[in-house]
């Protein structure tokens, strides 16, 4: 058992990476495997600095491939293990993530997005959205929480462990370099104080199997196409069935919004800044922010899109969320416009200007 550091509500002024390390501890995560990459390093640094107090475990591996696969090993052995990565690290860790997807391993990973493609920048982006949801050679049976600040980081990192272990789908915190490196106030708490019970993490590969127990053999390879499909059809059915329990979203002045901004993560916060300003100017703007970007909360999303007169997709990427949303809002005819800044933060001003221009010259399909 790991020692929990936060016993009562504690307000702190931290970087997001520090928040994630504290959150993992609050969730009783007891092992981190990882490989350094900016901008997620401080999760690891904080975790390591706290080790004497937490008595948790840590292993720095030789690369992200091994960080991913050893995390799987740790989970199989019954630890609430996790990892974190970003950018090119996220790319090569897909190898392990796709195995976790196939084997239904409760893999938890924090992704702190940086500019892409390739090494690009170490700073910030939302360009790992597609990758985190659908990376690997599979169908994306994954759960992805896109956070928008430090309280989210704490809340959803705790939740990620429970989601992963309850449903046995790889679960991600999708954040970014801004969130990782910036400092803002956050309330840390013991999950129990919020009525949150942590799921049990029984070992999948058991030590001390008694002689009369059948050995557990887990695999990811099938000899026949049909065997694979049968398995995946089950996953599909299950993923769809549990989706309603998992889906989360946030609306901000979306009820009567004529212009609906769809944004996730930290960009959604800029949208709120813009919406306040726009409302002051008499423009009815609102926000739909998917919190789970996989699975998407399709019903409220469609409803909000239907209600609006125009939609604005905005991302620090080139429409990666938009692609996922457009798939789900097919059939609706509300015209949309886009404001994409690849690898660059979207500011409130950017959005105010854009929405004003949409009011002047409405978007067409």
């Amino acid at each position, binding site marked *: 058992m790991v020692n929990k550091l936060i016993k009562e509500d504690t307000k702190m*002024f931290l970087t997001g990476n520090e928040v994630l390390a504290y959150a993992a501890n609050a969730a009783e995560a007891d092992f981190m495997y990882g490989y350094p990459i900016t901008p997620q390093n401080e999760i690891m640094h904080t975790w390591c600095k706290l080790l004497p107090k937490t008595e948790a475990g840590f292993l720095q591996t030789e690369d992200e491939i091994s960080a991913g696969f050893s995390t799987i090993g740790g989970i199989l052995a019954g630890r609430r293990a996790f990892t974190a990565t970003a950018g090119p690290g996220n790319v090569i860790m897909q190898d392990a993530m796709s195995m976790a997807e196939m084997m239904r391993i409760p893999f938890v990973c924090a992704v702190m997005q940086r500019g892409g493609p390739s090494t690009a920048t*170490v*700073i910030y982006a939302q360009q790992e959205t597609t990758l985190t949801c659908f990376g690997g050679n599979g169908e994306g049976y994954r759960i992805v929480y896109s956070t928008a600040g430090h309280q989210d980081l704490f809340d959803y990192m705790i939740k990620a462990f429970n989601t992963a272990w309850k449903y046995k789908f790889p679960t991600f915190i999708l954040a970014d370099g801004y969130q990782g*490196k910036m400092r803002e*106030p956050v309330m840390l708490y013991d999950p129990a104080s919020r009525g949150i019970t942590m799921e049990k993490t029984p070992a999948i590969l058991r030590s001390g199997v008694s002689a009369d127990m059948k050995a557990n053999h887990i695999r990811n390879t099938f000899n026949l196409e049909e065997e694979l499909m049968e398995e995946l059809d089950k996953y599909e059915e299950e993923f769809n069935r549990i989706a309603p329990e998992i889906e989360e979203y946030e609306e901000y002045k979306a009820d009567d919004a004529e212009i609906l901004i769809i944004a996730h993560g930290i960009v959604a916060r*800029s949208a709120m800044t813009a919406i306040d300003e726009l409302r002051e100017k008499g423009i009815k703007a609102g926000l739909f922010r998917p919190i789970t970007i996989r699975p998407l909360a399709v019903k409220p999303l469609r409803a909000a899109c239907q209600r609006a007169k125009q939609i604005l997709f905005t991302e620090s990427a080139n429409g990666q969320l938009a692609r996922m949303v457009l798939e789900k809002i097919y059939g609706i005819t509300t015209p949309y416009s886009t404001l994409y800044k690849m690898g660059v*933060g979207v500011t409130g001003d950017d959005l105010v200007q854009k929405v004003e221009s949409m009011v002047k010259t409405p978007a067409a399909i």
Partner: protein
Amino acid sequence: MTRTKIALAGEGGQGVQSVAKILVEAGYETGKQVLYIPNFGVEQRGGVSIAFCQISDTKIGEPRYSKADIVIMLSDRAIDRCTTYIDENTTVVYDTSVCTKKPEVKCKKLIGVDANLIANTELSARVFNIIILGVLLEATHVLGLEDIKNAMEHALGKKFDAKPELRELNYKALERGMNLLKEKAGV
């Protein structure tokens, strides 16, 4: 004004981020909403170092802004990098004793201070950044002197305890910075 947006930029060695940290720590301690993003790139040293700070009475939305209320620039390269954050509502401060050029910007106020010179000649090269902190404090008017002193104690207390004369030196630097701006305001 409920939210103040500050950009502070300089060279790697100038202590920009330490100043920013003290400032936002002070803001946090006084119960304000605070958001601080240190800029970072691939170079561990060598690039221009910028601190993006926001201090507000209400919840802060956007993490990065288009235009700052106050921009402080401590080197020529900092001027080049920060012009983008300046508009007609921005108060711009730069160090005339380091920069070899004057920022060519449209802004609310352009203030040149010679903090580096003062540090080197009057006080100590090491408190250059604290003078800047004083300038910042005066420029923003969001936090009180005591708030900052508390935050300085937090950040530098151990050093002060070891060498008590340092505390005085730093306080002097802080006030010198505040006065510097008071003198120069309106230039």
